[in-house]
């Protein structure tokens, strides 16, 4: 070992140096991977604006309505989701909430302000999957039963095309929710199958996850 090298090793404990270096490499790899995935990452519950989800208690003093039921991330708010009789929200318009998407999970009774909502869902498929936008304009009644996390089978007529597909979000072009698409998570082979489906005769069947 060279003189400089041996002096360095004498000053720094090698095992600690090795453990520290390994940990540093793990962190660097993690950062690179996170950057590679990009800002649109939506692994589980990324708040859309900073940490609004982490400071819900601070919204108690702001005008708000309360969640009337458990609400998941990316859920499209409807009439039944909020308690419109709450006096804390009398200065707010329904339109500020209905049709918007929750940026974080909300429990029943928690205050909901517009800062916690976003105009469109932000989704990302898990590893090995991709997202697929499936228009279901012909089946408006079905979208009412579906929600984030629903699992569906897709049929073309009476023929099953793909089974147990996870719904990541429901996207609608108007407030009446009569022109919606579902964003589903599919594997490459499922994507192949689903892309050949005649969308005019597609039907969805909700199944147990």
């Amino acid at each position: 070992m060279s003189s400089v090298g041996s002096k360095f090793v004498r000053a720094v404990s090698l095992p600690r140096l090795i453990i520290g270096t390994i940990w540093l490499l793990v962190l660097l790899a993690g950062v690179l991977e996170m950057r590679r995935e990009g800002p649109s990452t939506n692994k589980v519950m990324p708040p859309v604006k900073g940490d609004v989800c982490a400071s819900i208690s601070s919204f108690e003093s702001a005008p708000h309505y309360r969640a009337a039921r458990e609400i998941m991330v990316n859920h499209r708010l409807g009439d039944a989701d909020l308690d419109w009789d709450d006096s804390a929200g009398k200065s707010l318009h329904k339109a500020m909430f209905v049709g918007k998407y929750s940026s974080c999970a909300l429990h029943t009774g928690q205050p909901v302000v517009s800062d916690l909502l976003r105009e469109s869902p932000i989704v990302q498929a898990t590893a090995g999957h991709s997202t697929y936008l499936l228009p279901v304009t012909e089946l408006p009644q079905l979208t009412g039963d579906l929600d984030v996390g629903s699992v569906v089978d897709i049929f073309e007529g009476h023929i099953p095309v793909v089974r147990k597909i996870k719904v990541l979000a429901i996207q609608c072009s108007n407030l009446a929710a009569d022109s919606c698409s579902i964003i589903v998570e599919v594997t490459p082979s499922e994507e192949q199958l689903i892309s050949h489906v005649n969308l005019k005769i597609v039907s969805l069947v909700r199944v147990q996850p």
Partner: protein
Amino acid sequence: MLSALLSQIGTQLSSKRFLLGTVLPLFLFLFGNGWMVWLHYQPFRGWLTKIDGLKDGSIVATVLLTLVFVLAYALSSLSPTLLECLEGKRGPFAWIRWPLYRWEQAKLQSIKRQYDEIALTKVLLDTESKPETLVKALKSAEAVGVAKNRTSPKWKNSERARHALRIIKKYHYGRDISYAELKAGFTGLCRTLRKNSTAQNTKPSKALKKALEEFQKAIFFARDYSQFRRVELYNKRQFNYPGDMEENNDASPQNVLYPTAMGNIGSTMRSYSITRYSLDLDVLWSRLQNCIQSDAAYFGVLQDAKVQLDFLVALAWFWAIFAILWTPVAYWQGSVPEFLAVGSTGFLSIVFYSLACKAYLVFADLVRGGVDLFRFKLASSQHLALPGSLEEERLFWTRLGNLIGYSRNESFSYKHPTAP
């Protein structure tokens, strides 16, 4: 064994030492984990925000505080185990002890090698090449050069002059100078002095004169520094590793290293008392502690050092657990800054381990001091006559250790204190 016994230095509950050594690190750990749960577990956040009013808050605070104290008490009984894990006697470091042992062995060999080199320099400067002799030789060489009445303007560029200038530079920066380097520099400067005058009123001549004066100082520095380093390395050896600097052929468990720096520091306490007095702390520590406790001031200092050690050991473990537990969560659910912030706590664990090693050095020195100061009190507490010489003392402790620790048949005459 001794590490576990040393935990008896622990303190009463509710004392400041218990709060500092056990409750505080646990509180920091729980706070950190609570913060992460708050960030990533919605029901927990919802539950906390629902706690409203003094009554609910008081109940929850009381329950949490009680829980912290119960956990702290459990942790205080766990602290010897945590220490033993860092010492490499059990747990993860014991599982990978072979490469770690090799490293500790290499470090010890490196200290011994440096010590031998520096000791050789010291011996040679004390005998073969005394500084006064070297200075005298330089002055003789200077006289020869002065007689030549000329100085080369490029004397600094010669290879032999460069050796001398290198030594002067090392002296200016307080770096170690080996005997071989000093000798080469001395020879080079002598030759330069013989060919160049230091008495002329020119820049090169004045520079040579200045170099001669500095080199003379460097010679004395090399002698003093070798003595300084020799003592430093000797202390490093005996405070960081069990056993003796000199090779010892006697069979002794003290010649075996532990796989971690902390383990070897811990082992020096037992090694010291065995090599100095043949007193085995594994056998006699509890009795010796009783004697040390009679001196409240000394025992207080010992307790403080132990608390500091326990505090740092607990933090080293807690930060490691925190980093391993939460870094993946921050990766999957958090942002890059959060991931880096949580991940960097892994380095804190290494920092606290290093600090714990330093604290262990202090604590071990206090225990060694306790052995020196209170061993005769220990003998008296057993109602035994004090040994008359060091040789007798070594035999005395060996026999007492055999009797108490290993139930061997030893003969002792009691010396009971006379009634006042």
